[in-house]
């Protein structure tokens, strides 16, 4: 039975690789960031309003990158949220089973298209289209990147929300119908409130996905860190900054090199918190129905 033990050991090791990955991520981000923060104070990092590590006159304020990230994310969410939730309600309350069966995998395609393709889409189709409506909009801008990102994350919102709606016990829906409600009234007054925590989770996870998205914003939103909420001008997100530095010729162990880890840990903290809020809510509402 020695063979059995060896095999179990190998399998266990494979599972532990996932733990090693997390440890590795934390170690890499922390060790480089700590080196960074030896040279730049955390206070400067979170309060300085400029981010110019690659210029001669260096400023290390993360705020412009965070602002750029949040701006594109909010635009994406305001596209994906109404559309995604409407789709979820439509598919769970209105659509024929056959329609649902065809449409669901098609919607998944939206999330399967490589992001570099969406970036191309934003830059060569959406931006020129926006320019024809708003002539003042720049060639690189948050609006175009945000809208396209929104289209990409529609399935994240719609499929998790739909799961939440279908998890609501049938009796609730039948009860509402039996009282003479229309499908619309049933959907919004009974089903959506009952599935609200699941829907919230879907939005939180979509939010987290948008914050971490890289290629669309790197291609279409620009490379100018700017503390603004104006969606018409070039900005830079945390992820786009990391790409920008990676493409350039930056010396290892220099302060410029370390900025990408400081930026990276900021990004990691945002997504980590969002994901865990999402998991926590999901765990709670699963218990509700068990």
């Amino acid at each position, binding site marked *: 039975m020695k063979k059995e033990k060896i095999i179990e050991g190998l399998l266990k090791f494979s599972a532990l690789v996932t733990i090693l990955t997390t440890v590795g991520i934390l170690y890499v981000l922390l060790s480089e960031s700590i080196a960074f923060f030896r040279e730049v104070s955390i206070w400067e990092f979170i309060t300085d309003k400029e981010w110019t590590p690659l210029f001669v006159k260096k400023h290390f304020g993360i705020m412009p990158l965070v602002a750029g990230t949040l701006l594109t994310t909010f635009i994406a969410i305001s596209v994906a949220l109404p559309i995604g939730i409407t789709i979820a309600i439509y598919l769970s309350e209105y659509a024929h089973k056959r329609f649902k069966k065809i449409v669901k995998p098609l919607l998944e395609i939206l999330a399967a298209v490589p992001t570099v393709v969406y970036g191309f889409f934003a830059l060569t189709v959406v931006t020129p289209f926006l320019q024809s409506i708003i002539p003042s909009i720049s060639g690189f801008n948050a609006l175009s990147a945000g809208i396209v990102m929104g289209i990409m994350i529609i399935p994240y919102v719609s499929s998790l929300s739909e799961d939440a709606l279908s998890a609501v016990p049938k009796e609730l829906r039948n009860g509402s119908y039996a009282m003479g409600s229309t499908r619309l009234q049933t959907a919004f007054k009974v089903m959506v409130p009952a599935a609200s925590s699941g829907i919230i989770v879907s939005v939180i996870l979509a939010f987290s*996905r948008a914050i971490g998205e890289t290629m669309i914003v790197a291609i279409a939103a620009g490379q100018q860190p700017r503390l603004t909420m104006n969606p018409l001008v070039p900005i830079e997100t945390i992820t786009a900054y990391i790409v920008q530095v990676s493409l350039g010729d930056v010396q290892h162990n220099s302060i410029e090199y370390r900025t990408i880890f400081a930026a990276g840990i900021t990004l990691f903290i945002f997504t980590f918190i969002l994901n865990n809020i999402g998991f926590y809510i999901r765990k709670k509402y699963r218990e509700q129905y068990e």
Partner: protein
Amino acid sequence: MNNSQINRLKDKTFNYFGIFCTLIGLVILAFFIGSIFYDGLRRIDWDFLTSLPSRKAEKAGILTAWVGSIWIVIFTFIIVVPLGISAGIYLEEYAKKSRLSSLIEVNISNLAGVPSIIYGLLSLEIFVRLFGMGNSILAGSCTLALLVLPIVIVATREALKAVPHSIRAASYALGASKWQTVWEQVLPASFGGILTGVILAISRAVGETAPLIVIGALLYVPFTPSSPMDEFTVLPIQIFNWISRPQHEFTTNAAAAIILLLLITFIMNGVAVYFRNKWQKKINW
């Protein structure tokens, strides 16, 4: 109009609005894909597929890019498949309910939510520098393997869960050991589900750009790699490179390369959905 008529009208209106929303994303995507085909299709010919990159748009080809992508896919597959399936088997068949196993589970869902660019930072320090792999195909494959590992693990677990317990009991009752039961009965019975997960994972890896840029994959590679330790580029990075250039001719090149990338992605996803449906139909124990 009385109250209930108004309600009916609202109900109907929402019905159409629902159809509209469901289709809008798809229509936009279809429109976009159409315009890419219009732009890029005429650019695709034998020369385009077999030429090295060039500073002249009309001469540039994607040979190094697709060859690089194939190298990356093969090595990612070799790394992630045994690792992911083993981890899935451990968690589903072996691990007892303990703090460690629930920690691993929480950790896997967390990893699935970590932005891909963070994996690039991890690999830049660990694989590229610490392990001295440099910006090689091997380093790139390790990066993508870790990135898609959660997808394979989760798919494996779902597929194993779908195998009824009675199959395991029957195997044990015949004197099979745990591993024999897993290897001879449970794994073959869950093959379809695992395969679906693996294809989706690889499809995701083919389209990834950001983490490879971070580990230093090159925008311009004038040779095709001949070993896993060689430097490389891949299709999405070549596309990104061409998009970043101002001249319109390069945009056409990007569109042409996107057509190929999309074809690969869609075919893989289609095959995955096909296997999933076929496999679901097959099991009616």
